[in-house]
């Protein structure tokens, strides 16, 4: 599954990510997710 152009997920802490989206949802935000979710989400980095 492809990640939108210029969208990014960046790990900044144990369970914290910075999500930068250039899609229909233009956001750049810090999100804390569960530890379990991290390994699922990180491979989706652009």
């Amino acid at each position: 599954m492809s990640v939108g152009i210029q969208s990014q997920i960046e790990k900044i802490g144990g369970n914290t990510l910075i999500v930068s989206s250039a899609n229909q949802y233009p956001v750049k935000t810090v999100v804390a997710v569960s530890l379990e979710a991290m390994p699922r989400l990180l491979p989706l980095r652009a």
Partner: protein
Amino acid sequence: MFKLAYKALVDRKMRSALTILGIAVGSAIILALIASSSGLNASISGSIEKTGANVLTIRNAGGFFERGSTSTYQLSQQDVNYLTTIPGVVAAYPFYSYGASINNGGTSLQASVVGMDLSVLSVLYQGLTVASGTFPELGDTTSAVVGWQVANPTSGTPIGLNQMVSMSVSGIKGSAGGVSYTVLASAILAPYGTALFANIDDTVYIPLQAAQFLSKSPYFTGIYVIVDNTDDVTTVQTDIETYYSTNVRVISPGQILSSIQAITGQLTLFLGSIGAVSLFVATVGIVNTMYVSVMERTREIGILKAIGYRPRQILGMFLSEAALTGVIGAFCGLALGYVISFLMGGMLGGIGGGRGGFGFGGPGEAGGVIQPVFSTELILFSLVFPVVLATVAGLYPAWRASKMNAVVALKYE
């Protein structure tokens, strides 16, 4: 998408396992109940079919079927003569039937004593063969044909050929206690199993004359009527019932077979619906688990949406998670149901194997074990149905997830 769904399931091992267990138990119960009751049906049908479809059994009213009947009519030689004159009837054979306790080396075996023209045995019970010995000659009233189980009891000493069989016969009118009786085992039958109302393996067959002496009565327990053609069975039955009114009871294997099949069919439906309820409960469990999962993963969904996942893809991800739960549950359920149905088969066999009842056991089995029947349809159903249910259960939570607003989801506390 499937990979994500699979990972999500693995991450919540305990919760996924419990949800899968719910589905597995539900589907296992349906499978086990239907397989066992189909097995029961097949077993009963098999035992009824062993008695030829062209044999009608005439009994005095007030017996097994009509305990409340006030009829005092008793069947005698006159009735045998009359029955043979009915068009379509080939022959009529009277019989005596009593309960007996066989004394065998200190242990006693509950059995039946049936007095009849012994040459008719092979006509009545198709495929019945002699294991050893020969049938008593005509006029020999001291010899008997012994069923396999009587000769080879599970406990106690076996009875060999030409050995004396001593027993206490009960149910003879005018004698309160048992009547002592001894016969010579001139033939031992091969294991046969049960036929309609008779467990052949648990029976001692004595010549009609001997039974007449034993009971000191000219009145028979019943008469077997052999009809020349199975198509005429119903006509002959109607003729007999018209003639005797409520004085006798005519038992036709075909009729009993269809009524028992109707009962077991309903039993299957009833038991299946119990299983369906448990599967429904499991489905609600999936809805619950998925719903909680969606709530918990709101931020995750927000991230996915923010980086470009389409609602359809989110929907697909959660649906595949639910479907995967269903698939694993269905396979576990199949295995579990397979085990349970064999356990249930033993239990049902224990209930049905009672002497004097239908006795559903196979040849040589004391109690009898019902072999569950797994039809291809049943196996396919138990594999597909839980998956469909689980997917349907996942629809609403998945739809909720797909409809989330990314920004709101990201900020979800």
